[in-house]
C-alpha cells in the first residue's frame, strides 16, 4: 500500500467510526454525568461516527476524481453527495454540543429549545436545498456556519474561564477553559496550519475555495472569512496561553496549540508560491507540498481528531470509570493505540521509501511502547481532576429536567439520520441532481 494515501484516509475514517461506536457504549453506561455532560458525550460520539462515514465517502470521491471518472452515472456523485450530507449532520451535532458543553450557554430550557430549533431548522433547509438541486448556496444555507457558531462560543467560554480570578474555582475554571480550547482545536486545527499564509497574504491561503471549482467567488469569500475567524481565535488563545504561562499558570493547551502554529510557520516556507490552495484532500502526490499537507492537514483529519476526542471523553470524566468498566475501557485505548500506530506508519510508508519489513518491526516496537505507556497514563488520566462545577456560581449550570429516556431517543434519532443521509445521497446520485448542479455556472454566488 506504500504510496497510496487512500489507505491512510480509510484507516482514519474507520478509526473515527470504531472509536465513536465504542465510546458511545461507555458513555451510555455512565450514570454519574450531569445532564449537559451526558448530552455532550452522546453528541461527541455521534460526531465521530458521522465524520468517519463522511471521510470514507471523501476517500472514494477523491479516488474517482483522480481516475477522471465523473460522468453522470459515476459513483463519484454518490460519494460526493454523502460528504455533504454527512457534513450537515456533523455541523448540526457540533453546534448542539457547543450550546451545552463545557458550560450550558442558555439559562432556560425555552432558550435552549429555540437554539436547537434553529440548528435543526438550518440543517433541514440544507437537506431540502440539496434535494432540490442547490447545495452550497451560502447565502441561505451558510455552509460552514458551525465554525463561527462553535468558535465564538468556545472562544468566549475559554477567555471567560481562563482569566477567571476566583481562587476557589481555579480547578473548575481551568478545566472548562481547557475543554473549550480542545474542542476548538478539534474542529479547526487543520485551518490553524494556514495562519502564516493568511497573515502574509500568500497564494495558498487566498486560493482556498469552499468546494474546489464547484463553489463561486462569494462562497469562497465566506469560506475564507470563516478560516480567518478560526485562525484569529487560535492566535488569541496562543497569546492568552503564553501570557498565562509567563504568570506561572501554564496548561497543556499552550504546547498543543504551539505545535499547530509552529508547523504553520514552517508550512509557509513550503507552500508559499505553490499556486494551489492548501487543502486536506490535496494529498498523495510526490511533491514536497503534497507531502507537507499529508503530514499536517490530513494528519489532523485522520489521527488528531479522534485522539483529541477520546482525550476529552477520558480526561474529563465522560466515560464510565468504575472498576468493572476499566478493563473494557483499557481495551478500547489499546485498540486506539494499535490503529493509530499502524496508520502513522502507513502514512510514513506512503511518503518515504521505507522497507515494509522495517515498518512492521517498528510497528511492533511502537505498539509495545504504546501499551506500556497506556498502563501508566490511563491511571493518571482516570485520576486527574474532572471538576467543572466546584467553586463556581450555580448560575453557570442551570438544571434542566431532562428525562433519561431522552438520551436513548437521541441515539435512535442519530442512527435514523445516518440512514436518511445514505438514502438522500443515493437518491441524489440516481437523479443526477448533483451532476446537473455541478454543470451549472456559479459566477453569481
Amino acid at each position, binding site marked *: 500500500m506504500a504510496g497510496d494515501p487512500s489507505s491512510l484516509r480509510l484507516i482514519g475514517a474507520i478509526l473515527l467510526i470504531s472509536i465513536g461506536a465504542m465510546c458511545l457504549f461507555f458513555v451510555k453506561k455512565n450514570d454519574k454525568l450531569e445532564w449537559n455532560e451526558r448530552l455532550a458525550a452522546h453528541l461527541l460520539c455521534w460526531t465521530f461516527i458521522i465524520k468517519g462515514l463522511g471521510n470514507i465517502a471523501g476517500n472514494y470521491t477523491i479516488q474517482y476524481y483522480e481516475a477522471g471518472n465523473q460522468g453522470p452515472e459515476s459513483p463519484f456523485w454518490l460519494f460526493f453527495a454523502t460528504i455533504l450530507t454527512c457534513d450537515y449532520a456533523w455541523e448540526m451535532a457540533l453546534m448542539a454540543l457547543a450550546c451545552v458543553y463545557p458550560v450550558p450557554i442558555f439559562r432556560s430550557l425555552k432558550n435552549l429549545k429555540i437554539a436547537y430549533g434553529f440548528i435543526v431548522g438550518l440543517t433541514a433547509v440544507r437537506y431540502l436545498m440539496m434535494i432540490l438541486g442547490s447545495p452550497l448556496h451560502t447565502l441561505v444555507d451558510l455552509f460552514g456556519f458551525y465554525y463561527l457558531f462553535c468558535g465564538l462560543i468556545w472562544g468566549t467560554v475559554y477567555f471567560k474561564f481562563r482569566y*477567571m*480570578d476566583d481562587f476557589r474555582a481555579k480547578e473548575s475554571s481551568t478545566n472548562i477553559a481547557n475543554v473549550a480550547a480542545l474542542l476548538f482545536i478539534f474542529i479547526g486545527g487543520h485551518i490553524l496550519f494556514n495562519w502564516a499564509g493568511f497573515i502574509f497574504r500568500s497564494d495558498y491561503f487566498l486560493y482556498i475555495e469552499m468546494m474546489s471549482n464547484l463553489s463561486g467567488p462569494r462562497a469562497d469569500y465566506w469560506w475564507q472569512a470563516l478560516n480567518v475567524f478560526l485562525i484569529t*481565535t487560535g492566535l488569541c488563545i496562543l497569546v492568552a496561553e503564553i501570557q498565562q504561562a509567563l504568570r506561572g499558570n501554564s496548561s497543556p493547551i499552550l504546547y498543543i496549540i504551539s505545535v499547530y502554529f509552529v508547523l504553520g510557520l514552517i508550512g509557509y516556507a513550503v507552500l508559499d508560491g505553490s499556486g494551489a490552495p492548501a487543502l486536506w484532500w490535496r494529498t498523495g502526490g510526490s511533491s514536497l507540498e503534497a507531502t507537507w499537507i499529508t503530514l499536517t492537514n490530513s494528519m489532523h483529519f485522520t489521527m488528531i481528531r479522534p485522539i483529541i476526542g477520546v482525550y476529552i471523553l477520558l480526561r474529563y470524566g465522560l466515560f464510565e470509570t468504575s472498576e468493572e468498566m476499566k478493563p473494557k475501557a483499557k481495551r478500547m485505548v489499546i485498540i486506539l493505540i494499535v490503529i493509530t500506530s499502524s496508520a502513522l506508519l502507513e502514512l510514513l510508508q506512503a511518503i518515504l521509501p521505507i522497507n515494509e519489513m522495517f515498518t512492521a518491526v517498528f510497528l511492533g516496537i511502537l505498539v509495545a511502547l504504546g501499551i506500556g505507556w497506556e498502563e501508566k497514563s490511563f491511571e493518571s488520566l482516570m485520576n486527574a481532576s474532572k471538576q467543572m462545577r466546584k467553586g463556581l456560581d450555580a448560575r453557570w449550570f442551570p438544571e434542566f429536567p431532562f428525562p433519561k429516556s431522552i438520551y436513548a431517543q437521541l441515539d435512535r434519532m442519530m442512527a435514523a439520520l445516518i440512514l436518511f443521509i445514505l438514502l438522500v445521497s443515493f437518491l441524489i446520485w440516481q437523479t443526477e441532481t448533483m451532476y446537473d448542479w455541478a454543470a451549472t455556472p456559479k459566477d453569481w454566488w
Partner: protein
Amino acid sequence: MLQDVLGKDQPRVPIFAFYICVVVMLCYHATSYHLLDSEMIEDRYLVDQYTVTFAEAQYSVTDEEFAQDNSIYIEYEADSSFFTSHTGFGYLLVTVSYDETSGIPLDQCDSVSVNIPPTGANADWQNEKNTLSGASDDCSNIDLIVYVYPEYTGEEYTEGNFDAEEITVPWTEKSHGEGTFTIEIDVSSSSPAPPPSPQDNGEEVTVTWTAVFFDVDATLQPLG
C-alpha cells in the same frame, strides 16, 4: 448568559480583546481579498484554455507463422515498460501480409481471412472505428485497427479548465491495453490442378503488431 459572560464582576478585557481581534482580522482579510490581492484571486476564476496534444510513439513486433488449411492463433501483449514510459496506450495496428510461396507454376494467391476477437485485452472494443476483421485473396495486406484508450483519436483539441492536471489525469489510466490480443487467421489454399499434380498446402503469414502509445500534454494558450 451574556450578562454572566460580559458582567462587570469579572475581567472583561480578554473577551473584548478577542472580539476586537476578530473584527480587525476580518477587515484585514476583506481588504486583502477585495482590494490588495483581488486581481490575483480573480485570475483564479478565469477558465484557462489549454491545447491538448498527443505525441505518439510506435512499437512494432513481427510474428511469422505457417498456416495450413485450418485456423491458427497468434497472440500479442504490449511490453509493460511501454506503459510506464508513456501516458497511455492509444491504439493497436495489425497488418497481416502473405505471399504465394508454394513455388508451383500458375498457383494463385490463397484466400486468407483474419479476425481479432474482442476478448483478452482491455480495449475500447465497442469503438465504431475499430476494424477487427478482414480478408484477402490477392496477396494484398490486410490492415486492422483496435482502439485501446476510450475516446482516443490522437487529434489535438482545446479544453477550458482551471488546472492542466485535471485535463491530463483522465488520459493516464494504465489499465487500458493490458492483457493479451489474439488474432485468428484462416487460410484456404488452392492448387492450380488436382492431385497427383503438386498441391499448395498452406502459406507463410506475417503479422505485424504496431502498438501506438501516446504522451499527453496540455499547453496553456496565451490570453487573446
